[in-house]
């Protein structure tokens, strides 16, 4: 494709194309920037709309307000606990199962694989799944939002395929040197799989951090609510859920409701934006591995 041969029409197309994609990229990130800016705005500025992307005199009163009680700290702590223990559980369950299933000579392997694939096509649905969690006595426990999603069938299959494609010679020589199956997994397979473990660990972690529905379903105790549920309470239902906002300092000037909401949104988004640079290296590869059949 030599530029010299470009006709006028093609040049016009190029110009439109670059402009359109640049606009598309900007429109995608603009809401985030506006929310961040708005969370630092004062009431005067927000009501008069004197700023668009940068507040004239930035204020952190919205953040002081939302962190003036335990509510947000507790919600963040809940989210962190669920994300850390949830991701550890995901990786432990997924990696061990994927390793066993990656061994072609394992008796019953096809039956197990079919069993797993079937769960991708058909599920009992919300109510029976809810009832089993209830029967197991997991309601109002962190386990209720961790265990029912311990393995993603899709991730499992991708990781299994990855293990299967590791060079067989390495495993054989380890076995000749006296390694057991456990040893091969621990000393050969896992160290060779660090990039894919990091990728899927991050995917699982993002899933836990963003999880809203199972927390809503299984955690009735508002002291256990993660950030996402709290976010909805504050922004969409406009209530400080735990009700402990009333022990505020009476001299405290309430910031505008809008910028408090924006500040809460920022708190819910920042952790993801922080992992994004780490994720970015890996995710395209992760998605493409997943799209390979087999």
């Amino acid at each position, binding site marked *: 494709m030599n530029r010299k*041969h470009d*006709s006028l029409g*093609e040049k016009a*197309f*190029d110009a439109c*194309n*670059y402009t359109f*994609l640049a606009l*598309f*990229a900007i*429109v995608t*990130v603009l*809401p985030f920037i*506006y*929310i961040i800016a708005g969370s630092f705005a004062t009431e005067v500025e*927000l009501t008069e*709309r004197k700023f668009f992307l940068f507040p004239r005199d930035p204020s952190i009163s919205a953040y002081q307000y939302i962190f003036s009680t335990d509510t947000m700290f507790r919600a963040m702590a809940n989210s962190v606990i669920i994300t850390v223990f949830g991701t550890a559980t995901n990786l*432990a369950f997924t990696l*061990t199962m994927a*390793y*066993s299933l990656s*061994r072609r000579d*394992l*008796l019953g392997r096809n039956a*197990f694989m079919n069993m797993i694939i079937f*769960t991708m096509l*058909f*599920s*009992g*649905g919300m*109510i*029976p*799944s809810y*009832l*089993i969690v*209830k029967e197991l006595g997991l309601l109002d426990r962190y386990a209720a939002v961790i265990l*029912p999603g*311990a*393995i993603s069938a899709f991730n*499992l299959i991708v990781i299994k395929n990855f293990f299967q494609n590791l060079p067989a010679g390495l495993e054989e020589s380890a076995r000749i040197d006296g390694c057991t*199956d456990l040893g091969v*997994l621990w000393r050969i397979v896992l160290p060779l799989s660090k990039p894919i473990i990091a990728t899927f660990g991050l995917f699982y972690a993002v899933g836990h951090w*963003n999880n*809203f*529905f199972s927390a809503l379903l299984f955690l009735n105790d508002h002291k256990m609510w993660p950030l*996402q549920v709290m*976010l909805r309470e504050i*922004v*969409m239902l406009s209530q400080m859920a735990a009700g402990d906002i009333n022990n505020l300092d009476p001299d405290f000037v309430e910031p505008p409701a*809008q910028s408090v*909401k924006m500040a809460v*949104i920022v708190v*819910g988004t920042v952790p*993801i934006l922080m*992992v*994004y640079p780490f994720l970015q290296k890996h995710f*395209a590869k992760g998605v*493409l591995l997943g*799209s390979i*059949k087999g």
Partner: protein
Amino acid sequence: MNATLPSETDNAAAAAAIRTAAKRNPWLSKVKKDKWLYLLLAPGLLYFLLFKYVPMWGVLIAFQNYSPFLGVAGSEWVGFEHFRNFFANPDFTRLLRNTLILAVYDLAFFFPAPIAIALLLNEIRVGIFKRFVQTMVYVPHFVSMVIVASMTYVFLTTSGGIVNEVVAAVTGEKVNFLSDPKWFRPLIILQIMWKETGWGTIIFLAALASVDVEQYEAAVVDGATRFQRLIHITLPAISSTIVILLILRLGNFLDNGFEQIFLMTNSLNRSVADVFDTYVYFVGITQGAFSYSTAIGLFKSLVGIVLIYGSNWLAKKFGQEGIL
């Protein structure tokens, strides 16, 4: 040799014993050999049985008047009564309508968007610009639906939302985006387009990257314009990817994205917002009608399976590979 290995005969005898044991029960010996593998497999299997297969068995309560006190074993069987009630209920046509309209909107507006963006990105020659656009448009995929819905609320609210301020400045009137039923569907589609279009391009860009450059060069020599190259080389090259994603989408035709719709539903827009998924939640979890809502969920799952197999069959009919 025999002298240096006095136990050779013993070994042979032992080996023979193992062989006969293996002949008697070849499975047992294989399982024994791989005992560590089965141990590693056990937690995962237990997970699938407990959290996937037990609930599948749990759909039986759709045919019962399930009582949490009596359990599945003790509850009264009522056959297809809940299904009959559901189909006779005026809610059924409303749910089906809302679900189908949203699904069609999704297919018409959201499905082609990543393909179009990927094709446009593919025409970009400046690598750094392409990477910049990609980095930006992938971001919303990673934020939660709650954040997307919250941002929508903050931007569109009539009490100080920036969008409504602008609308009011131009037209003199504010619009009830969040509660007016006629805005519900456009909002849902716009949200999902904003969140997932960029992410959806990844798979198409990969398919595009695998197109043989020589084909383009040959076409240029033959005097093909950019548009002709698009029609005759690029589109055929990604058509199988498009078909596979279309099958997957058709298979999930009745899944409208529970969280998103749940979050955007309020008492004023319920007439257009209620879909099968959210209805199951409201009737089952918040009102406790376990059996009735399980019947609805089961109906939805069965239709979903029919749709997956149906669209897969169709794809094969049209000479594509399919997924099953």
